[in-house]
């Protein structure tokens, strides 16, 4: 598998995993989720996914784009789920729901990106340390 294919595949997979964590830990969804969890799990998940991107990708640029894609995919799926609930039930305040989805998604994007970045940095540093690069 080429570096580029691996970067794309891992970002997409991490994005879907984080979207699930965002959905399961969101107050709007948690009571309906098969496995409800607290918001901390999203941050733990972001850190772990960031670390995996840091381990599997060698190029700093690929890691950066991977983190951006991962966070973007996660929040797009999350806000898509929120908006689809409003649409399926003909909730009249559709604009308000969209705004709420955007706000919640924006906060999650920032957290996922920062914690993912910290995870990737930690993983890269550890790899350098063990390979004798530091």
């Amino acid at each position, binding site marked *: 598998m080429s570096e580029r294919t691996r970067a794309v595949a891992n970002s997409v997979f991490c994005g879907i995993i984080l979207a699930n964590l965002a959905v399961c830990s969101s107050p709007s*969804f948690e009571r309906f989720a098969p496995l409800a969890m607290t918001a901390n799990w999203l941050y733990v998940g972001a850190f772990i996914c960031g670390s995996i991107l840091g381990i599997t990708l060698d190029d700093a640029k690929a890691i950066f784009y991977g983190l951006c894609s991962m966070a973007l995919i996660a929040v797009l799926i999350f806000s898509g789920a929120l908006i689809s609930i409003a649409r399926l039930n003909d909730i009249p305040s559709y604009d308000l729901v969209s705004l709420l989805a955007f706000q919640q998604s924006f906060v999650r994007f920032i957290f996922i990106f920062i914690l993912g970045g910290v995870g990737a940095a930690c993983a890269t540093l550890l790899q350098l340390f063990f390979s004798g690069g530091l």
Partner: protein
Amino acid sequence: MADKMNLNNLLTAALAALALLSAGSIVLTTENCAQGVGAVLSVQLELSNLELREEGDPEVLVTFRLKNGSAVNVELETFDVYLHIDGHYIGTSYTPFAKRSVDGFEETTMDFVVPISPARAPFFEEARQKEDFSWFVRGKAKLLLPSFKQETWLYVREQWTGE
């Protein structure tokens, strides 16, 4: 180098498996949530009758109609009714049933007997001296959607004029 490639492949495969499970979980959660929100929005509670009974101690029979407009079965766990006359509280009826199930697209009526306590009777008598007085009924119901273990509070406020 080969070890690193093996580790990378292993991690990618593990991520793929987790992503598959996560996708299933997202779809399930969104479907459950859409159904649950729909069920809560489609439940309608309305006051259908209010009748004064004066044999023995005075009491008021309050009848509510519950319409379940969704396909999901709902269950009423509690339903408390508070009765006021001309702005004065005169009595309460606390959930006279254990649990009440209402199947999808069905409606049911529920009767509540609100006894007028002797301490509140003067307000009741005073209001009845007037030609025109009003009843005010406040209901608080706890709704359960069994398949999601979801609980929701429904509130109903209705005004009723005269006897």
